[in-house]
């Protein structure tokens, strides 16, 4: 298994380099260093000298990928791409283009993001599985039909509707939760429960349908028929056999997204005033802050790769037939 892990980590390096290269190419295709300087320096009284100074101070006055004027290895190393990429692999994100430390920002903002994302994920998973099991339990009945119709309806409604409706009902009309805001420590619970509720309800339609499909697939297999033929109760068949075997794709799917929970949710955090990482990348794209964009894309790629590796590992835990070599 160690060899497998080492090999996967080695594969990760060219992937990360490729992601970095793509981020560079896409970002600078849309924004030139001059555009970035202008946006950072403001719209009033910006002189050409100020733009040149800004670029020079941040190393954006160099060529992007190839420095034909340099000699030796400088052709590749004396470029924006090389200088801005190398430190990323040591997880040194440096300073944003507005001068603020990116690592510090990520460390501060990931906790509120987790405070929302983790309970939403765990509770959402439990609720979705429970509802899916109920639907499977009552399959071919009006409970299932009603549930499926409701699930499709809930899937079709925009996530924004759940947020606004949740805020309207629970925070405004019933005055049971702050509309937005956040506090540290145990006080966070007062601010977190409503966005978590909204997140869970908002994801219920799609989640329940997806898990129902998984369970129905399992329910049609031979071992289930055998279990029933042995005279096991429906509940026992469902919870002992179907659920257990259905957990393989659930678990592996869940493990894959687990590391990405750090990145937060843009809309939920924005509406509920949660000071998380959700809006960090979008704000940076709007502000043309390349330092933040490349750091967050890099971090996202690392977490995604980590998620995939964890998925592979989890296969070995839940399915003894799988061996990693």
């Amino acid at each position, binding site marked *: 298994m160690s060899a497998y892990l080492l090999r996967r980590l080695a594969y990760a390096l060219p992937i990360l380099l490729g992601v970095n290269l793509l981020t560079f190419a896409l970002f600078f295709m*849309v924004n030139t260093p001059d*555009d970035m300087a202008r*946006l950072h*320096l*403001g719209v*009033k*009284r*910006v*002189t*050409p*000298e*100020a733009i040149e*100074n800004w670029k020079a*101070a941040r190393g954006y006055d160099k060529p992007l990928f190839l420095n034909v004027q340099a000699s030796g290895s400088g052709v590749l190393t004396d470029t924006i791409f090389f200088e801005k990429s190398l430190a990323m692999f040591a997880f040194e994100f440096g300073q944003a283009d*507005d*001068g*603020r*430390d990116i690592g*510090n*920002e990520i460390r*501060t*903002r990931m906790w509120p993001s987790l405070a929302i994302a983790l309970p939403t994920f765990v509770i959402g998973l439990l609720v979705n599985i429970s509802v899916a099991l*109920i639907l499977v*339990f*009552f*399959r*071919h*009945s*009006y*409970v299932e039909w009603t549930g499926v119709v409701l699930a499709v309806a809930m899937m079709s409604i925009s996530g924004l509707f759940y947020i*606004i409706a949740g*805020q309207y*009902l*629970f*925070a*405004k*009309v*019933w*005055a*049971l*939760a*702050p*509309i*937005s*805001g*956040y506090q540290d420590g145990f*006080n966070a619970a*007062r*601010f977190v429960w409503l966005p978590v509720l909204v997140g869970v309800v908002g994801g219920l339609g799609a989640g329940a349908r997806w898990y129902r499909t998984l369970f129905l697939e399992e329910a049609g297999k031979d071992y289930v028929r055998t279990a*029933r033929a042995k005279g096991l*109760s*429906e509940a026992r068949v469902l919870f002992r056999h179907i659920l257990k075997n259905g957990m393989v794709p659930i678990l592996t799917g869940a493990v894959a997204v687990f590391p990405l929970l750090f990145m937060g949710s843009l809309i939920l955090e*924005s509406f*509920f*005033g949660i*000071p998380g990482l959700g*809006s*960090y990348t979008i*704000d940076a794209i709007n*502000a043309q802050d390349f330092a933040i964009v490349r750091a967050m894309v890099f971090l996202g790629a690392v977490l995604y790769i980590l998620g995939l590796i964890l998925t592979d590992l989890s296969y070995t835990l839940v399915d003894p037939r799988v061996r990693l070599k």
Partner: protein
Amino acid sequence: MRRLILLLSLIPLAACQQAVNNPYPTEEAGLGILYSAFSERPKHLDPARSYSSNEVAFTGQIYEPPLQYHYLKRPYELIPLTAEAVPRPRYEDAQGRSLPEDAPAAAIAVSVYEIRIRPGIRYQPHPAFSLDGAGKPRYLPIPTALLDEVTAIPDFPEPGTRELTAEDYVYQIKRLAHPGLHSPILGLMAGHIVGLGDLAKTLEAEARHGKGGWLDLRNQPLAGVQVVDRYTYRILIKGKYPQFIYWLAMPFFAPVPWEVDAFYSQPGMAEKNLVLDWWPVGTGPYMMTVNQPHRQMRLTRNPHFRGEPYPAEGAPGDAEAGLLADAGRTMPFVDEAVYSLETETIPYWNKFIQGYYDASGISSDNFDQAVQAGAGGEVDVSPEMAARGIELKTSVSASLFYTGFNMLDPVVGGLDEKRRKLRQAIAIAMDNEEFVAIFRNGRGIPAQGPLPPGLFGYRDGREGMNARVYDWVDGQPVRKSLTEAKRLLAEAGYPGGRDAVTGRPLVLNFDTPARGPDDKARLDWLRKQFRKIDIELVIRGTDYNRFQDKMREGTAQIFEWGWNADYPDPENFMFLLYGPHKKVGSGGENAANYQNPEFDRLFVQMKDMDNGPARQAIIDRMVDILREDAPWIFGFYPKNYALHHGWLHNVKPNLMANNELKYRRVEPGSRSVARQEWNRPHWLGPALLAGVLVLGLYPAWRAYQRRQQAPGRSGRTEP
């Protein structure tokens, strides 16, 4: 179980003490705190860099430049802040001889501003001022163990303070030239302050060849800025620049002590965001104690602030409005100001209605809920708002939105008669009254010229009317008819909207970065205005960067632009049309690339004049030239509508001042009572919702039970 019951029984009890939806900590209840919000994180809090209004909203409360605007008087008037008096410039010729005050601008080589500050003013508590037993800076260098421990400036255990001196002001002016700071006004000020441009070049060379770290500006001479004595400094301005006095009321000219610069320049500080751009240091009434721009900013009363009396005089009507009730009382009144990040308007508005924000603007979505117009057109708060004691304050902003023509464009540009008439025809067709009514809920005044109300040179009534676009009818300006516009269009060579020579329809292009679904209605409206006189308008939507490129390269044809006044002087608007400031070629602020020799000559003359009839006459002529040439379609002056609760006092919009927080007063008692009353929790609703859910599950439960009791099972299950 017993514990759970006890816990559940405590919930309503807790709710009685403080509303459950209160977003603030319980211990803040009843304190003299002002609650506000910000929608965009401030980028810079360093006084050499901060320029945007959302940044100055914070820096203005902390830093103290020598001058400030009178809070209540109109027209805007500069008064001393830390200075003993508003300085009057002394003029010298090229030989250094004194000149009289009325000397012609051409004869003046240097204007000398000598500023004397008041003794005894002290800085906020800050570690940069902390001294050890030997009188040396305690945190210079900062111990590594301590640096590992602290995350914010208030974490330092032993802050210090010291008296404000003239040298601190001089140090900050030198900082404007610092190559690492990229001060937005360096280019402008290098053209005015003697020696500042040379200092910038010297510092840049030093930074390039130096080892990095702190650049001690005390050792860098600046010919045009000198310390006279402990409390006096002198600024030398090239020639005559009367508008310089307004800059002395902005944080760019606030003091920065060398100790602070040295303190923040230490290794390891930037990695923890312990920099001046994050933790400002000033002598003002407030200091920053929490800086979490992704969440909350907190300004707390500076314990070393000297106190300042609330103004005893105001504009007519201020006394009746209760704005002089606190006359003579020592400011600041509010102990703390808490600013929360609200990026969405819905939660911001709802929290204001719930009493959790003391003041709010009005978005278009909430306009009808908040405001209603009377029979005579006067506006007031809606009955719903009035019942909550909410008050409305309106003001006309010192800003202008306009539609510009690129004067270098072969179709719409140029100063010849035909193209001038084409622009005039479009100006008549563009119904700005309708635009303000539809898209701004009436919050704007259609503009008659480039100068907004409140600025010297602005004229009201008939004499202020743009006679090329309006007629004076029944005591008010009425837009000329479309027939007149079509006549002008025909004279311009486009009868019926077609080229008289080729017969082709006239197609014009509007360049804009606005291309989202929210902009569609506005752009459709714009097309309609041109269609009224048979001109086809093509919307060339593009992203912001490409739009800026087009403007710089002069390839845009028609565009929208705006300007927000830096200071209340007509020069600050007229320079937007001064030929040498053209965007194409010089990168200036003249986005229309307009150049009229007579206008340029008058501008040079007007900018150096003192306010008076002679200056007014020149401004009148300049405005007339602009109306005739029509490089801009004067759009509208925006009107600000702001709401505040009845417990917030001394609210008067001041569009120039940036240090308004010290004037504000809150009544925490009234606020607590109102919050309690408006936010009673309703438990019945969620109980009913839970009941419906349980009832919905009941048939399933029953079915499950039936199935459990069934003697045998079939392939199909029935609930």
